[in-house]
């Protein structure tokens, strides 16, 4: 029962923060709402016994990625946005209607889906989320995760070089 109460509190926090992010016209306010949403999701990961992912979520998403967002917002110094009436209102209505249709489709498809098997025991799941277990799975030569890991390191290297090349001043 405490798990269910925690779920609902976090659900209200996450959905409320997400709606605040979408409805706000101020980018800084959007970014801070998104941080709240990410922190709520990190608590979800910890309650789902994925402790390592929860910690990484806080460090990478709520930390690094959002600092990057805020840094770019401050760098561009856009000031208050000017509202452009006209087609935007029509666009907004169409987007909300399409979103409602998408949500309905997702829920209806979920209704006809029966989860196979039974939920794993808490002890099994608890052992899976530790740093040791994640590391052993990620670097094990007999599992298929080692090559994607190496490819990811190459991707990050290309990203660093690409970001520097794109944003440096032309001389």
């Amino acid at each position, binding site marked *: 029962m405490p798990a269910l109460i925690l779920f609902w509190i976090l659900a209200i926090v996450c959905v409320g923060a997400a709606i605040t992010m979408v409805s706000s016209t101020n980018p800084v306010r959007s970014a801070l709402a998104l941080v709240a*949403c990410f922190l709520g999701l990190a608590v979800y990961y910890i309650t789902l016994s*994925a402790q390592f992912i929860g910690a990484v979520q806080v460090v990478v998403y709520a930390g690094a990625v959002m600092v990057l967002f805020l840094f770019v917002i401050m760098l561009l110094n856009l000031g208050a946005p000017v509202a452009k009436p006209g087609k935007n209102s029509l*666009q907004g209505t169409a987007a909300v209607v399409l979103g409602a249709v998408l*949500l309905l489709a997702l829920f209806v498809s979920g209704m006809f889906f029966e989860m196979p098997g039974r939920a794993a025991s808490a002890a099994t799941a608890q052992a899976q989320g530790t740093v040791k277990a994640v590391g052993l799975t990620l670097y094990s030569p007999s599992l298929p995760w080692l090559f994607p890991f190496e490819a990811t390191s190459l991707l990050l290297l290309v*990203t660093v070089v690409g*970001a520097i090349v794109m944003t440096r001043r032309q001389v």
Partner: protein
Amino acid sequence: MVPVSYYLSLSAILFTIGVVGVLVKRNPIQVFMCIELMLNAANLTFIALGRYFGTSTGEMYVIFALAVAAAEVSVGLGIIVTIFRVRQSIDLDDSALLKS
């Protein structure tokens, strides 16, 4: 224990909010934030199903999704900074050079 369908429903709601935000927002930085929200909704699905089945496959996918999201944000924000430097505006409606 909370049923896994609750997590999937929450993930669907967050994903839909992200989709609506991408369609509504005219500021590319906020569009990026909505894309991040959609990625996080997918991550929640992976973690919840990994917990349900008792495997670590879901966590592996989330680790790679995190790395790709970080790379995507850094490159995307670099593109936004470059566009701002060239056009002095980042409004998505102003960037319609190909739509002449």
